[in-house]
């Protein structure tokens, strides 16, 4: 029997707290899960620094990837005899679902920003490069790995297949919303996925929702909205992200400086600092390695690196105030100068963080040709964009969803000896509103 058609002698299941069970019958899927590249995802947390806010959020990209696979498997089962669905694409969809996050690194958002990397690029490289994953996919058929890479890269010819993995209501989002809600312990993020799966309809180039299922989709959009504000945009998590990014910046700066020598050579980081990361090096860096260096860097000579690592490891985070760049730019410049005057480097200790710095999006109907919205299929078979039919979705689509925060180490400010300068700084910060404690 051809490798692509081989089934396991009996169905394997993974116990999963979100979907109850993840079912695997295909030999290809079983083999992909067993590769080192996929197992590596166990050592990368799904939500990066969120566990410093919600201690339950220790789940990994491995759990999530299995979850997305399971949702796509269920969708495909429902599509079995629907028009427009090409049964030949089944294995391709399952592989793309399983492997869609393969290129994520440790704390990938901060790493991508600081070192100008793109996890999607590495996902592609792992799939088409010289890896175990690649060998398995090519055993399915020559060129199959490129197809999987194209589906994940959203450039595959069959848009229906692409939209299962990435669209405004896709398996990826449906899994992470529920999974992140479960592990953080918040009461948001729940919606009736079974109902959504039942009202999904494949059409020529996208998945649409039968109009009678609109309320289930409203619930999904609401839970997405609430999860953003409650979990993903949480100011404490952002404080940890700010410190993490600054650690990486500082370590890079020190590496570039001729005068500084690390006590412990940062071997795993050198290609990141120098902007020439090879796939092999990328795959070696996981969260355990990062934590190892952050531990070691607390012993380094450089005061800033030492302090930032100590803060990150011991959760001594920055405090924050709301910041309005329209009204407070001049105050910010004044603060910048004052920080320098008291010997606190503002490049590392006075940081504005904006909602656009975060890797999450809200539902937006958008305009024609900008981005594919969620479509309802009406009883007369016409398509209607969701917010044009749902008052609830329309209401949240029009709301302000942006904010900016100014982060700083309040403990350092409290310790300033020059009372005059200290008061000036505090006046500017407190003048902007209450200083928020991140505990």
């Amino acid at each position, binding site marked *: 029997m051809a490798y692509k058609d081989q089934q396991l002698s009996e169905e394997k299941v993974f116990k999963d707290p979100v979907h109850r069970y993840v079912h695997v019958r295909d030999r290809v899927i079983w083999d992909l899960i067993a590769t080192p590249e996929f197992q590596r995802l166990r050592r990368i947390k799904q939500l990066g620094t969120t566990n410093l806010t919600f201690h339950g959020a220790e789940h990994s990209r491995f759990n999530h990837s299995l979850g997305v696979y399971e949702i796509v498997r269920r969708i495909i089962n429902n599509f079995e005899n629907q028009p427009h669905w090409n049964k030949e694409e089944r294995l391709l969809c399952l592989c793309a679902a399983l492997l869609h996050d393969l290129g994520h690194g440790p704390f990938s958002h901060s790493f*991508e920003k600081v070192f100008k990397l*793109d996890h*999607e690029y590495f996902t592609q490289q792992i799939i088409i490069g010289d890896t175990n994953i690649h060998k398995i996919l090519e055993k399915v058929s020559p060129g199959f790995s490129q197809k999987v890479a194209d589906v994940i*890269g*959203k*450039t595959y*010819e069959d*848009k229906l297949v692409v939209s299962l993995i990435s669209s405004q209501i896709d398996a990826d989002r449906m899994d992470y919303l529920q999974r992140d809600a479960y592990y953080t312990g918040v009461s948001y993020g729940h919606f009736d996925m079974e109902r959504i799966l039942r009202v999904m309809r494949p059409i020529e*180039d996208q998945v649409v929702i039968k109009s009678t299922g609109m309320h289930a989709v409203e619930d999904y959009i609401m839970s997405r909205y609430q999860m953003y504000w409650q979990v993903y945009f949480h100011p404490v998590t952002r404080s940890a992200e700010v410190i993490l990014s600054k650690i990486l910046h500082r370590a890079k700066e020190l590496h570039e400086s001729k005068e500084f020598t690390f006590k412990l050579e940062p071997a795993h980081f050198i290609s990141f600092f120098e902007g020439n990361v090879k796939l092999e090096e990328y795959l070696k860096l996981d969260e355990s390695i990062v934590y190892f260096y952050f531990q070691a860097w607390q012993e380094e000579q450089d005061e800033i690196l030492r302090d930032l690592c100590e803060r990150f490891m011991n959760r001594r985070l920055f405090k924050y105030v709301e910041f*309005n*760049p*329209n009204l407070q*730019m*001049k105050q*910010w*410049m004044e603060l910048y100068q004052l920080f320098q005057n008291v010997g606190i480097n503002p490049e590392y200790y006075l*940081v*504005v963080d*904006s*909602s*656009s710095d975060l890797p999450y*999006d809200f539902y*937006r*109907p*958008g*305009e*024609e*040709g*900008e*981005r*594919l919205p969620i479509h309802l299929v009406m009883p007369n078979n016409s398509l209607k*964009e969701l917010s*044009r039919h749902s008052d609830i979705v329309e209401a949240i689509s029009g709301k*302000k*969803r*942006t904010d*900016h925060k100014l982060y700083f180490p309040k403990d350092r400010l409290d310790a300033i000896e020059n009372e005059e300068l200290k008061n000036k700084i505090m006046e500017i910060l407190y003048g902007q509103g209450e200083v928020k404690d991140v505990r």
Partner: protein
Amino acid sequence: MLDNHAKLMQFFSVVENVTGRKKLQKMIYILQKCNIPFEEKYNFHFYGPYSEELTLRVEELCNLGFLHEVKEDKSNYYQYNYTITDDGKEFLQQFRLDMPHYEEKVEKLKERSSRFLELVATMFYFDHLTLDEMIAKVHTVKPKQNYSEEEIEEAIQFMKDLKLD
């Protein structure tokens, strides 16, 4: 701080007026591909390269009163028009940005349709492929747009001209 916001504001001060979010998306992407250092991260979406970061940053600039957004109802969809405000100009004055000159490129981009810019942006997205592969890929990912040979030829020439500026 807020350098990426400032870079966008500088773009809006150069372009003066942009009609259509799709056009805006493609203009910034094409400028990036011409080595103008905008940092918004792009991925491929249904309609070509698209940046969620850009969408959100523009929304932030509107909420701050730095950009004026006009929403026009086009039956099934809305279309958006952007211009810089006085507050936006004042904000921009507080930055010293080290950006190359790209005014001529913006002039060239401005006068083109969003359909054409979508084609150019898509071709740039596949610029690691050979020309034949690139054209084949454009037809694969955009079968509905039905781009003609003339349009593709024109886009190739346009890309060369842009890079020469």
